[in-house]
Each structure stands twice: as C-alpha cells, then as structure tokens.
C-alpha cells in the first residue's frame, strides 16, 4: 500500500511536468488508481482532489487534457467548478466538456447550461451538443433560445441537441423554430427524431402530428418520404 502511494505521488509530480512527448508510462499509477478505487469512495475522492489541484495549477495543455480524461471517468460534483471555468477557454473547452458531459450530477448539467450565456460560436456549438448528449430535458428552454442564432452552426447544434433530448417540450420548440436557412435541415431531422421517439413510446398521435406537417410539398422529397413512411408506421401500429 505504501509503495502504491509513493508511486501515485510520483505520478502526480510527473503529471505537473507532462507535455506531448513526455513519458506517459510515468502516469500509469494514476491509471491504476482509477481502476483500483472503483469501490473505495474515499480513495477515489482523494484521487479526484489531487487531479483537480493539477487542473487548477499552471500546467501544460496536455497535462490538463490528461486530467480531463481522468475526470470523465472518476469526476464528481467536486470537479465541476474547476471544469466549468475552462468552458470559455478556446483551447480547453472541449476537454472540459469531455469530463463534464460524462459526470452524471445535476451540477455538471447546470454548469454547461450556465455556459450558454457566456460562450459563442464553435464553443457554444460544443456546449449545446454536450447538453444534447446528456439528454438534459431541463435545458430545453435555454437550448431553444439558440435556435434563432445568426450563426448557422449554433442554430444547427441547438436543433440537434433538442433532437437528442426528444421530449414533448423539445418537439414543440423545434416545431416553432424559425432558424436561418442553413440550419433548417437539422431542425427537420430532429423533428423526425422526436417523432420516432414518440412512436417508440406509443404516442402515435403525437408522432403522426409531426409527420403530417413534414409530408407537405414544400419539404424536400427525402423528407416527404421519411414522413410518409412514418405515417404508414403509425397506421400499422394503430391496427
């Protein structure tokens, strides 16, 4: 045990000097500790605290990248504040999401949702996608607000996130969306995804309502065919 602790101390020191090209074998004790603390909450919390300390210190991008990967596996609510501060940083935002997206606590979702007000452009695309990947139904209102964004990538990411969440509220927001033209295809795709979710839940009328609105001549042929097939499925399941 003492030997393991010494190795972990050494690895945490190596992490502080870690950079692309450094010996990653020096970090193996951290990898081992991630596995060995699986059923030892106190030891895992201690490991998390050490990693957070590194994240908050003046270390390389690669070292912070490594910590975020580890926190994606073992991070808890305790990691959220440190990770949240990185969401607005161009170079670190993705890896902060890499961890936050996988941390199940509501505080992680809260942090991502709060970041929507402070980031823009590609960083906002990333935050929206992470909320969608989490299926965070509590974020529908904030995500829907981005549907009208002048940046087509942001609007498309908002639509995609709602298509991942697939609640009735998400479907309503998509139905009401008036995005710029470049984002429209993802809005429609997400509406189809919502209809499929309703079908799977046995909500045939809700699904059919979406399909009926997409079957019209104003939509591309591929969409009309998808909607037609959806209507067919609704009819078959009703029988």
């Amino acid at each position: 045990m003492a030997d393991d602790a010494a190795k972990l101390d050494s690895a945490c020191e190596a992490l502080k000097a870690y950079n692309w090209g450094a010996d990653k074998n020096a970090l193996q004790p951290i990898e081992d500790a991630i596995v060995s603390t699986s059923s030892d909450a106190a030891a895992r919390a201690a490991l998390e605290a050490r990693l957070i300390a590194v994240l908050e210190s003046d270390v390389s991008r690669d070292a912070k990248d490594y910590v975020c990967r580890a926190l994606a596996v073992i991070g808890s609510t305790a990691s959220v504040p440190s990770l949240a501060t990185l969401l607005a940083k161009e170079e670190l935002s993705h890896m902060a999401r890499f961890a936050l997206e996988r941390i199940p606590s509501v505080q992680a979702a809260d942090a991502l949702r709060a970041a929507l007000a402070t980031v823009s452009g590609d960083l906002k695309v990333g935050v929206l996608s992470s909320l969608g990947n989490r299926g965070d139904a509590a974020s529908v209102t904030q995500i829907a607000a981005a549907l009208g964004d002048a940046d087509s990538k942001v609007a498309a990411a908002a639509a995609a996130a709602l298509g991942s969440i697939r609640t009735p509220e998400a479907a309503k927001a998509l139905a009401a969306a008036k995005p710029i033209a470049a984002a429209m295809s993802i809005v429609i795709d997400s509406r189809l995804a919502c209809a499929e979710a309703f079908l799977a839940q046995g909500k045939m009328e809700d699904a059919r309502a979406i399909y009926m609105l997409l079957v019209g001549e104003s939509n591309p042929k591929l969409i009309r065919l998808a909607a037609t097939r959806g209507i067919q499925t609704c009819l078959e399941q009703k029988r």
Partner: protein
Amino acid sequence: MNHGTSSTRREFLKTATGAAVTGVFAAPYIITSKALGDDTTPPASDRIVMGGIGIGNQGGGDQGAFLGRGDVQYVAVCDVRKKWRDGAKDRVNGRNKNSDCAAYNDFRELLARDDIDAVHIGTPDHWHAIMVIEACRAGKDAYCQKPETLTLREGPLMIAAARRYSRIVSGGSQRVREDFNNLVGPCWNGELGAIKSVNVRDFGPLSQLCNLPAQETPADIDWEMWLGPAPWQPYNSGRCDGNFGTGGNSWRSYVDYSGGSLTDWGAHLFGGATFASDVCELQPTAAVFHKADGQLGAYVTLTYPNGLEIHHRRPDQLKPEGPQIDGGKIQIHGDGVKRDPKPAPGYKGGGGIHGDFIHCVKTREKPFRDIELGVNTMVALHLLTIAYRLQRTVKWDAATQQFPGDEEAGRMVDRARRQPWFLS
C-alpha cells in the same frame, strides 16, 4: 441494364417512389437519392454514381473494388491528405479515360452533390458515425469500413439515420462471410447442434492514449479536418499514418481514433463468430471479466440472451462435452443434438461484399452486412473493451442501450466531440 428481372432499376425506383409518396409502399427501403429525378433533373442512369471519402489504405482498396465494376460510375474522391486525394483522383480519371473526377478536402462538399447515389467511407474510425449519418441525411447510401463505430452511442444513431431516410448502409468486413466457411457450414447445417460456446483467439491490444510530440505539420494535410471530432493534439506522423499497425506508429494504436486491434480485427473475428453461431442479430447481456489465475491470463466472456457464451482469448481453451470445431482463430462447440439445417445468408449479387452493397443499392434489399449487424458486433467489442479497462464484469441492456445501475461503465457509452462537430 438487366438485373435478371423484367424491369430496370430506374423503372423499379419510379414505381417505388410513386407508391411511397401515396402511402401504399410499406417496405423498409424505398428509393435512391438522385435516381428520383425531378422536373429539372433527368433520372439517373442505371449505373450507381459513387464517391469515396477517406481514400488512403483500406479506402483505396474499396475504391479499387467499386471502380472496377461496370455498374458503378465513380465521379468524386475526398481526403484530407493531398497525396491520397490526388492519387485517388488519378486512378479514377485513368479508369474513366477523362479528367472529370472531382476531388474534395471536405466530405460535406461531396455529400452536397445531387448526382451521387452512394459513398464509401474509409476514414479512421472517429469519423465513421458522423459521415454515415450525414450521408444518410444527404440521401446517399453508404458502405462504411469496419470498425463501424468508436463508441456505443454511435451505433443506434447510425441505424436510426439509415432507417429514417431509407438508406442502404453496409458495414465493411468482408471476412465475416468469407473467412470462416469451415465454421459456418457445420453450424448452420445442424451438425454441431445448438451452439453452446465459442472461443475467439488471437487478436491484439486495446488502443491507448497518444502522447507523441509535436512535429511540423506538412502542407499536404488538413490537420484540423483529420482530427475532426477527436481531441486536439499536435500533428505527428505516427498519430495519423499507417493503417493496421497498433504498435504506436498508426492511428489505430490510439484511443481517440480507434478501439485498437481489439475492435479492428475484432470486427472480423467476432463478426464471424456471431455469424457462425447465429447471434449476429443479438447484443450481449454482459461481459464477464475473469481475473488472471496463475499462469492463465485474464479474459472476458460475452453472454448472449439465448445462453451462448463467446469467450475472448480464454486461455484454458474449450474442453466441453460434445462436438467442437477448431477453426484456428475461432473455436466453436455445440451440444451435438443434430438440428434441421438452415441456409446461411450470403452476399447478394456478384463481386463480394462490394458487389453485395451495389446490388442492394439497386434493389433496396438489406445488404449482408447491414449496419445493424455491424453495430451489434461493435457493441460486443465495446463491452469487451470496457470490461478490460475497468477490469470487472459489466452488464448491458440492449433495449435501453445502457449499463443498468452501473454509473462508472455508463460514462463510457460515449465521449464529447470537439466543436464544431456533433452527433445526433
């Protein structure tokens, strides 16, 4: 073109389209993209118009297979490496005896072309899901190299996109049908009886974290696009070169781009094992981790809903009661109670797995390696990977696509993609 029926593909597609729009055509596959035609565009010819995305190494092999077919009109290539792109373009132009082949750095430009019916995708694994889904949204059929997915979450989204837009999407392991006939025959003809267990041997390591130092980025690669949804890392030739190597000098060695040899060769071997034992339409219920015991190394057993066990590198070999067949890399044992034979599924059309795909693009039948079957194999491999990484047993619920009550494993279902790329 004569497909051995009384109607041409074009006539079939016209009929299918009309029926679908009026709501009386209930088959799962309906129509190709451009073959619809409209007021301003004439219907497509009877040849399948194709483009290729990710043309180096295996993608180049796929290109050769499609390019050599008389029923394919190959018109466009896409690769983020100029040397691959130019070489692939030259091959097409040489074959077509013209200079018409278009070359793209960005796959979205290729997918935006209305005249392309189908694409083949041979990029590193971290791009597969996004590209397949975008191809479906663009109305293209897709042949995607294995391993089809990098994470568990990707598979259902790829299947959903294929079904939503009635696209033909084929996985890309030719070995599943071609390498294991010595096993498939005795299994499907009932000789072995009910298959009880399988041992899959002989394939290599998990992918690992990449920490190669920065090198100067060559002018002939769009490094940001090569990385795409993967975490940003500096250019190093060992990060992106190579194809099959897993010793540190190939993208397949590294976790951001690949599941390593376990998912690369695993796609072939577990695809073959699940096909031979007739569980390729199922997903495992658990990956049971067996700790190393003395001289015997650790291994993992996948359990299936029908009671079948598929071991990965079980070190003590199978020594069961009842007949068994040792096919080298795969060993299968049954209960010996002879069963009625069943015909094993095979390729449709001629020309191997590529011909199967083209045949299905024309007829709208499901290809031999329909994306759902490829995904089922990948689920098995991802479960193996997660059990090895966590060094413990994980249970899987195929209905919800989750690890029930297992938050730690649940974190490994997916990973955040680098902006501006996302998956939905």
